[in-house]
């Protein structure tokens, strides 16, 4: 029975899976942009961003002229009691992504619009991908405006424009932030496919986020402790590997490598790696990119994996409410 069903789904179907994709994207984006939810989020993000950028600008003003990466410091400097801009983002971006995704599919069930929409000439692929892209584009617009604000504040308060490398580094950071938000978005969408109640899927998404944001370091330590045999070095290596399962770790390391050009290696640093290196001298942009390539690939792979999982589950669901 199960096997037979599978065979049927595998049967070749005709027509592009992307028929109607852009219609869905446009409709969903209009919903996000016009929705009260997004306005609240943008307000929250703008407020915190401005606050943290303003206070870090005041703190680093004296270093203008000495530090070649002064604009990047705007992103990373934390001033007691405010965390830095990037730590705020690490917290607010998952929040935004989950908010945009947790009711994307189940709300269509609950409004009884799903069967009506799917009786139009589109595949479920287009609906799912369309909703994902729409949320991602919405986040892109938000992030781009944030980026412009940071650069603008830099100009106003510090009086200098960003250098070419600073622009490059911060833009790549933007792309990485998008990939990071993509994970939380697709996790929220996965739960929106699994759970019929939006409250349940929101809760489940936040539980996963909490697990990685707060408890993962504890869990990492516990699990690594089980591999005591490898000695101190083995234990640290295990700890690092496990901690890198968390998107938060990956994103944190990407941030570090991109926005702190002095970062020469991520995770465990062996003495041999530092030989010949001038401590404190910045790494060229391309080498920094190389450093984060595995992390970036990891984030992307996770997004694709979760998307595939969501797709398969959605595909097998009965559409009737």
């Amino acid at each position, binding site marked *: 029975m199960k096997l037979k069903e599978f065979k049927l789904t595998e049967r070749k179907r005709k027509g592009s899976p992307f028929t109607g994709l852009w*219609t869905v994207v446009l409709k969903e984006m209009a919903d996000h942009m016009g929705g009260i939810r997004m306005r609240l989020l943008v307000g929250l993000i703008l407020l915190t961003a401005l606050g943290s950028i303003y206070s870090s600008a005041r703190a680093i003003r004296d270093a203008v002229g000495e530090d070649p990466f002064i604009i990047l410091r705007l992103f990373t400097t934390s001033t007691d009691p405010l965390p830095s801009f990037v730590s705020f983002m690490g917290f607010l971006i998952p929040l935004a992504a989950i908010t945009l995704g947790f009711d994307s599919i189940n709300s269509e069930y609950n409004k009884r619009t799903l069967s009506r929409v799917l009786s139009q000439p589109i595949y479920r692929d287009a609906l799912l991908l369309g909703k994902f892209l729409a949320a991602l584009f919405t986040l892109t617009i938000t992030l781009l405006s944030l980026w412009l604000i940071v650069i603008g504040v830099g100009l106003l308060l510090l009086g200098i424009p960003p250098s070419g490398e600073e622009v490059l580094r911060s833009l790549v950071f933007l792309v990485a932030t998008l990939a990071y938000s993509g994970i939380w978005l697709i996790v929220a969408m996965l739960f929106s496919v699994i759970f019929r109640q939006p409250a349940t899927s929101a809760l489940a998404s936040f539980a996963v986020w909490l697990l990685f944001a707060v408890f993962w370091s504890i869990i990492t330590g516990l699990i690594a402790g089980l591999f005591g045999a490898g000695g101190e070095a083995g234990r640290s290596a295990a700890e690092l590997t496990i901690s890198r399962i968390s998107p938060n770790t990956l994103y944190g390391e990407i941030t570090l490598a991109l926005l702190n050009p002095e970062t020469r290696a991520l995770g465990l640093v062996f003495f041999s790696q530092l030989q010949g290196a001038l401590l404190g001298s910045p790494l060229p942009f391309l080498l920094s990119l190389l450093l984060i390539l595995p992390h970036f690939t990891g984030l992307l792979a996770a997004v694709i994996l979760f998307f595939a999982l969501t797709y398969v589950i959605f595909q097998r669901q009965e559409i*009737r409410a």
Partner: protein
Amino acid sequence: MNTNNNTVIKTENLTKCYNETPVVNNLNLSVYRGEVFGILGPNGSGKTTTILMFLGLTEPSGGKVNIVGFDPLREPLEVKRRVGYMPDSVGFYDDITARANLRYTARLAGIETEETEKRTNDLLTQLELIDVADKKVGTFSRGMRQRLGLAEVLLKQPEVAILDEPTTGLDPEAAQEFLRLIRGLKGKGITILLSSHLLHQVQAICDRVGLFSHGRMVLEGTVEELSSKVIGGAYDLSVEASGNDLEEQIRKIPGVVEVELYGENEFHIEAKEDVREKVAAEIVRAGGKLLSLNMKRHSLDDIYARYFEEERDEAQRVQANREKA
């Protein structure tokens, strides 16, 4: 599958199982171009499941469907371009206007913008929704939503319109009005398949009906055909007469199938042919007094009730036999 030009929907041994239990069981059904076909059956008899399989929204466990010349499993997009579907509980995006809802559907269906505006205005006028076209659907009553649902179906100018229980939740007058609209579509050459358990309504607008029970189509045909199949005698007389031994006398009349006596002098007569004259003559001949004589045609309600009564009796007999054994 061989379909001639006049068959718009054809199924061959169509089967759907949930957890090994067949919900639609070896269904063989043909719907012809331009007709109004009604699917009848009690709750859970598989009407909605059948409809979903027609549109490729649920995968059959076995058998074949051909609708407007396509296999909905392999070419769902082609099918959905030509077939309009109104689900049994139609829902819209409440926070946008009726017009915006229709516009979204039209874009998904690939209708050009200009054409959409024109069709939308025509349809909303025709369905008397034009005054509320720019109101949010959240404020709509059930009847308005239902009409908007019909507008959406018609927007893509379908060859076939499939309506799942289109009149549930409507008050009698609105239901009547809605059925009139549906019947009007027939004039435009649209084939209509609708499911319902409101029998008198189905009877009023359907050319042919299929009676579903436990996933099988147990009866199919025009209401008259069904009537003679299930009830045998297609005539039902109600007679008021006083006299002695009338019941015996009437029973002897050729053509009479069954006579029942209610109270003192009211008879219900079931007959294979029109026996009004003979009954009247017999009563007079027997020295009785004929007070009234009425004949009624069988409605679908009678057929339905009778069919499921017989089915229940049959089931009870089987049960009893099993207990005996």
